[in-house]
């Protein structure tokens, strides 16, 4: 993928915000990346177009799933230099609480890292880190540099 090679050439291989800005669907969702040292937190600011239930002002399950998937992918790209974006093989999402009309945060951990496949767990929360609104685990095919 061109953007990954360009960032690498510029010595910005870990600039995940630049990557996210380059992905139309991540821009559509409004995802930001907050980096503190070697830790990445993804941020999904609330926006009306993410709502799935107007009566409850709850986020759409699909927006939550996509945010988890992008959080997992970004973590994977942050810890592993890849030629292309990882391909999702499968993802399993647990919906734990209603996601309200506020900012949402995400963290992911690469639990196993093989030559071709990585296992990643991701969790998202809103006001309280200890009360996740959803969690996911998935397998991703990679093309390491």
């Amino acid at each position, binding site marked *: *993928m*061109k*953007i990954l090679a360009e960032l690498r050439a510029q010595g910005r291989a870990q600039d995940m915000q630049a990557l996210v800005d*380059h*992905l*139309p*669907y*991540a*821009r*559509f*969702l409004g995802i930001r990346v907050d980096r503190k040292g070697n830790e990445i937190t993804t941020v999904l600011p609330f926006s*009306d*177009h*993410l*709502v*799935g*239930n*107007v009566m*409850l002002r*709850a*986020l*759409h*399950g*699909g*927006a939550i*799933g*996509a*945010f988890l*998937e*992008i959080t997992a992918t970004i973590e994977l790209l942050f810890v592993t230099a890849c030629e*292309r*974006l990882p*391909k*999702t*093989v*499968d*993802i*399993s*999402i*647990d*919906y734990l609480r*209603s*996601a309200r009309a506020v900012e949402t945060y995400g963290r992911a951990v690469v639990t196993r890292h093989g030559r071709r496949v990585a296992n990643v767990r991701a969790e998202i929360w809103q006001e309280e880190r200890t009360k996740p609104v959803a969690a996911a685990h998935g397998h991703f095919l990679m093309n390491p540099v």
Partner: protein
Amino acid sequence: MTDDLTDPLAHIPHAAAIGMQLVSRGNHRCVVRVPYAAHLVGDPDTGVIHGGVITAVLDNASGLAVRSTPDGVDGPPMATLDLRIDYMRPAEPNKDLYTEAECYRTTVNIAFVRATAYQDDRADPIATSVATFMLGTAEARA
């Protein structure tokens, strides 16, 4: 299958923002279409739409299938418990995406749904999913 005159997806902001359209529903099934659009692209090099779009349409179609009973289109409040998606192949750019969902079992508490996302040929899926929904929740989720 019966067509609704008003598309319930038009009243769901995120579904409308993605461009989801109800094709048909009834008898615990539904078909939802997503026209190809630039803002759905996940990889600008290839123009392939993002997996998250497929997640969103599988989730929404699965929920709609639960509510597509022969005797009425609206059931009790419900919440998605889990959604598991297998991705078989990338979607091809510039083609509409279809999702067919079937609620194949409902118990007092739980609805079980499977769904397939495809483009030209249902037998050549892009992704398949299974989902469970908790029925009759006090606090319904999207």
